[in-house]
């Protein structure tokens, strides 16, 4: 062995260390691992004095209920349903006021432009194209977000998410996936790109990939308002008004449930085929319940989530509104481009219980899921005659009356929105996280395949049974 003065290389140091380890007696060997824990315990004993009971009765009782195999899952589902119900009930009215005010501005501005003798295409592009897209996004998305996000954040701050992960752990284990995947799904409720990054908390590369590939089955901030709105307009309207809000909330819970089921199915399939392996064990800490700081919750959920999502939706909706207006007003061989494209996509849309315009909207909305419904509406109102839409009930009349939407259309749209390919940001994040074209492609195409498959089956079955 070299002296410290000579030239040394890395291998020699390691060999030396190995040699030293072997030369240590049994007691010292054990000491290596134990020394830190022993010191920590000693310091702890000197510093902390426990006076009386450590756990509050309340905490213990809550945990017994929330993480019990019997009551844990039902309570979880019920809580989500209650949150959604509150959102749906409370969002309706402000949505109508906003729609009324914002579309009023559109009309008045258009008239003003006419008086100023502005060219028709400028009025059309600016007010009936760009502005209308913006007005749609704000009026249909802002109220539900401003209610849903704060309530969800309160639950998060309270310490509910780790309990959800705890309850879901058994299911994930059965599917050969990691229990912490439930936490990445919790992140996915905010944003799928964040959920994909959050998969870093999973150490095993195999289980991490499963979490990354399936994260898009959790509806994100951008898709939740779409789901809530569709449930509100179609599901709620399909039942007696007393039950309307419950049916709508139930429908969204059902969609989220379908998302969870697909997460589990796809995880199970992946872990039995291309990502074979055993689920690894882990320690999940259940943090204490903490009283949420209401002001901070309001701040983070309103500014960081609501305004952020709205801002993203608006900046995406403005160019999309412009594109839609152009597609609707550039005529080739007597038909607008929208008609051409929607017509070409119609057979595919029809097969999936949707229509050509919806598929076109999904293609335009790849950069941001937030704008799918606004794009659909813009495409409709551009392609056809101008229709005044004030509030959700008129919107329903428009879609049902003019474009023959049925409950089946709404259900298929909700399913497609839940299961389809992630937005471009998420796809980019998957690539950044995996550095693999193969996994990125799978992450984008697999959900798309699932969405097409599921909506096809649902649509065909429903039609065969004579519904829709």
């Amino acid at each position, binding site marked *: 062995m070299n002296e410290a003065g000579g030239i040394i290389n890395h291998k020699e140091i390691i060999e030396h260390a190995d040699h030293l380890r072997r030369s240590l007696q049994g007691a010292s060997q054990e000491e290596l691992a134990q020394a830190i824990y022993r010191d920590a315990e000693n310091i702890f004993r000197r510093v*902390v004095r426990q006076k009386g009971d*450590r756990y509050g009765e309340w905490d213990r009782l809550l945990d017994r209920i929330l993480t019990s195999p019997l009551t844990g899952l039902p309570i979880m589902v019920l809580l989500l349903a209650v949150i959604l119900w509150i959102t749906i009930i409370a969002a309706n009215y402000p949505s109508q006021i906003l729609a009324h005010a914002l579309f009023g501005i559109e009309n008045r501005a258009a008239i003003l432009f006419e008086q100023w003798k502005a060219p028709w295409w400028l009025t059309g592009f600016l007010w009936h194209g760009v502005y209308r897209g913006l007005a749609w996004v704000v009026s249909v998305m802002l109220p539900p977000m401003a209610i849903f996000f704060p309530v969800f954040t309160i639950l998060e701050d309270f310490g509910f998410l780790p309990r959800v992960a705890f309850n879901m752990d058994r299911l994930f284990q059965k599917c050969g996936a990691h229990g912490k995947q439930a936490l990445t799904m919790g992140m996915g409720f905010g944003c799928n790109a964040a959920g994909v990054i959050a998969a870093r908390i999973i150490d095993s590369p195999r289980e991490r990939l499963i979490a990354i590939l399936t994260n898009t089955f959790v509806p994100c901030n951008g898709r939740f308002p779409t789901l809530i709105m569709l449930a509100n307009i179609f599901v709620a309207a399909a039942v007696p008004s007393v039950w309307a809000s419950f049916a709508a909330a139930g429908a969204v819970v059902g969609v989220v449930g379908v998302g969870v089921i697909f997460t589990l199915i796809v995880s199970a399939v992946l872990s039995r085929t291309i990502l074979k392996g055993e689920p690894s064990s882990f320690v999940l800490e259940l943090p204490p319940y903490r009283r949420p700081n209401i002001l901070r919750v309001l701040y983070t959920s309103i500014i960081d989530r609501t305004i952020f999502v709205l801002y993203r939706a608006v900046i995406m909706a403005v160019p999309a509104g412009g594109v839609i207006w152009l597609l609707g007003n550039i005529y080739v061989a007597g038909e607008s481009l929208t008609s051409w494209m929607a017509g070409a996509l119609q057979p595919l849309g029809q097969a999936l219980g949707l229509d050509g315009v919806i598929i076109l909207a999904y293609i335009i909305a790849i950069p941001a899921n937030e704008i799918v419904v606004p794009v659909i509406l813009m495409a409709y109102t551009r392609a056809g005659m101008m229709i005044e839409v004030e509030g959700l009930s008129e919107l329903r009349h428009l879609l049902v009356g003019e474009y023959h939407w049925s409950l089946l259309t709404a259900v298929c749209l909700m399913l497609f929105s839940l299961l389809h390919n992630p937005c471009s940001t998420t796809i980019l994040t998957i690539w950044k996280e995996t550095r693999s074209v193969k996994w990125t492609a799978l992450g984008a195409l697999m959900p798309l395949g699932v969405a097409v498959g599921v909506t096809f089956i649902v649509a065909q079955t429903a039609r065969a049974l004579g519904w829709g």
Partner: protein
Amino acid sequence: MMENIKKLAGCLRQLTCGGGDACPGNWRYLGVDLTHWDYVVALAGNPNTGKSSIFNALTGLRQHTGNWPGKTVIRAEGGFQYEHKRYKLIDLPGTYSLLSMSADEEIARDFILFGQPDCTIVMVDATCLERNLNLVLQILEMTGKAVIALNFMDEARRKNMDIDSRRLARDLGVPVVATVAKTGEGIRPLILEAVNIVTGAVKTQPHKVERSAALKQAIEELVPFIEKMCPGLPSADWIAVRLIEGDIGVREALLSGRLASWGEKKDLKEERKKGPRP
């Protein structure tokens, strides 16, 4: 327009989150403006101990916070300015130890080891101190430039725990500050302590884990080799212990040359510090 929204949001957040007024005078949020920093401060600790809350309070940024472990998976960076010195603050992922091989533990360990922060603030959950102390002791083996933030003191009181923070400071040999991150309580003294460490005004005597004579001898035998290879590395003792224990991650760092190239990284850091001030 977005600038104004951001500014307004900044004011709102000071009002609602209490970070702003908890900070001492001569204070300025730098957010993500990380040019020309003078000092680097790292935030380490167990998961869910309030690191991101403190990070947000100090930098004016808005890292995701919430009551569950594992939120921070990437190294978040932000800045603040205090008394004409610019500080870069690194929010490390929460870990229970720095010994195993998981990705987040490696990020945290590598930063404390190779990033050589001028001060490491270790966030500690006062309500489960014993488990948290394991990480504290591991960090103190690596660096003496540390301050302990004893967070959730309000909860500890509610749980009928009497915590002698002065005794803790004496035993650990580094400053200990009691904080309640969510209200901003204690942030000001915490920063003053951190600044004292950074400027060298306070010298610490970090607790070293007690080991048997045989083990001590083995460590002493190995340290010269490590120092020879990476001169000036302040945590040569720690690396010796880890190598004798057979830590695969440290072995890897050694074999891949990451350890050896430490000296070059230090020079790089010095250079960046000297860069022109705005």
